[in-house]
């Protein structure tokens, strides 16, 4: 297991794209928003938490089709499936690697991008926390989608169509935490719901992902 995560991280660093691409995409989305809605600070302040959450979510989505595709193409996935690792463990590790290479950099970058959208001062902490708690759920759910579409030639678009509806609850609770935090309101309820969602998906969804991966391998 440890070898698998080490290998995936090494590959992400060396092959490039892993860290950089998602972050650059996040930056571009956040840059484009003011062009679309106008430069008024009051409006930007109001929508900043939501924009940052949606930007992070889309950046997360961008790299999902690589979670299994590369291992599928070069045959590693077959070999991993015959190795003494449970399939559930493999998909969990894959989700973890995706989070470390995509989710975590987004979490760290989000406060900096908050500056661009004049996020109010109390919002930074809650934005950071909500993303820190919520992005693992995005990676785990995304890994399920990636496992569903791994054998398909043009799976990328289908992957988005399958995964985005599944992202709805995470987005709602995550953005709610950030928004309430920015407005100085109580955040306990959505924060707990978000944490519950993350832990729940992390505990249960790998079984579904492993099942669909087994189906796709045969």
């Amino acid at each position, binding site marked *: 297991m440890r070898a698998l995560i080490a290998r995936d991280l090494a590959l992400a660093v060396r092959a490039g794209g892993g860290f950089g691409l998602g972050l650059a995409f996040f930056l571009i989305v956040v840059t484009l928003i003011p062009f679309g809605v106008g430069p008024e600070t009051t409006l930007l302040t109001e929508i900043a938490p939501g924009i940052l959450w949606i930007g992070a979510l889309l950046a997360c989505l961008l790299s999902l089709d690589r979670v299994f595709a590369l291992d599928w193409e070069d045959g590693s996935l077959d070999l991993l499936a015959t190795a003494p690792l449970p399939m559930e463990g493999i998909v969990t590790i894959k989700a973890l690697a995706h989070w470390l290479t995509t989710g975590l950099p987004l979490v760290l970058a989000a406060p900096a991008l908050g500056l661009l959208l004049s996020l109010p001062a109390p919002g930074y902490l809650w934005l950071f926390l909500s993303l820190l708690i919520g992005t693992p759920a995005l990676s785990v759910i995304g890994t399920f989608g990636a496992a569903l579409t791994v054998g*398909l030639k043009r799976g990328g678009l289908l992957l988005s169509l*399958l995964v985005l509806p599944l992202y709805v609850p995470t987005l709602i609770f995550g953005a*709610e935490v950030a928004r309430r935090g920015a407005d100085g309101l109580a955040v306990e309820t959505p924060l707990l719901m978000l944490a519950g969602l993350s832990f729940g998906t992390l505990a249960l969804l790998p079984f579904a992902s492993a099942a669909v991966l087994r189906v796709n391998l045969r």
Partner: protein
Amino acid sequence: MSLWEYANPVKFIRTTDRVLPWLAWLSAVCLAVGLIWGFFFTPDDFRQGSTVKIIYLHVPSALMAINGWLMMLVASLIWIVRRHHVSALAARAAAPVGATMTVIALATGAIWGQPMWGTYWAWDPRLTSFLILFLFYLGYMALWAAIENDDTAADLTSILCLVGSVFALLSRYAVNFWNQGLHQGASLSLDKEKNVADVFYFPLLVSIAGFVLLFIALVFLRTQTEIRARRMRALLARERMA
């Protein structure tokens, strides 16, 4: 004699062939009676006027939108547990029907919403949930369409249906929470049965029965089509093998 006998495609087609005409006619009669009774022989609502009569399309289609997904969930579970091909194909057959019901519910809701609330669309929890349900239908159908191997597609879509159901439920609660959190309990929700007087209620029941029968008839018909398409592929494959 057990229910599972109908999992045999031949038996399924033979039985549904016998039932289908009855179902279709019964559904047509129920729909005609329910809608005509509802549209022309009920009084106008004292607040909403005659616009309330869209309820005879809106409520039944909304019901079938949700029940259609539930039926797919049950059929998917049967496929996962007992591996009856007819069950997987029935789930596949139900998806477009359910999606259409969702569109009807959304469209009639919008048409009703314009005179009542002054807007075609509001991000009310109930409306939003239906929109999300429609997205789930789309994803489910797209996955079926994308995979060539029938059994692989059945397996993957069944698991997607299972996972999707859980997330659809989560979304429902999340959306409820989200909108109250924003608008302090928008008063757009439609508390149906409680506000509906008997005079509107009976034609509504007839029309709901009509929609249920229509749904069953369409699913039977589409399942037959799926079975025949599957049979054709199997025959072609045997041809290639020989």
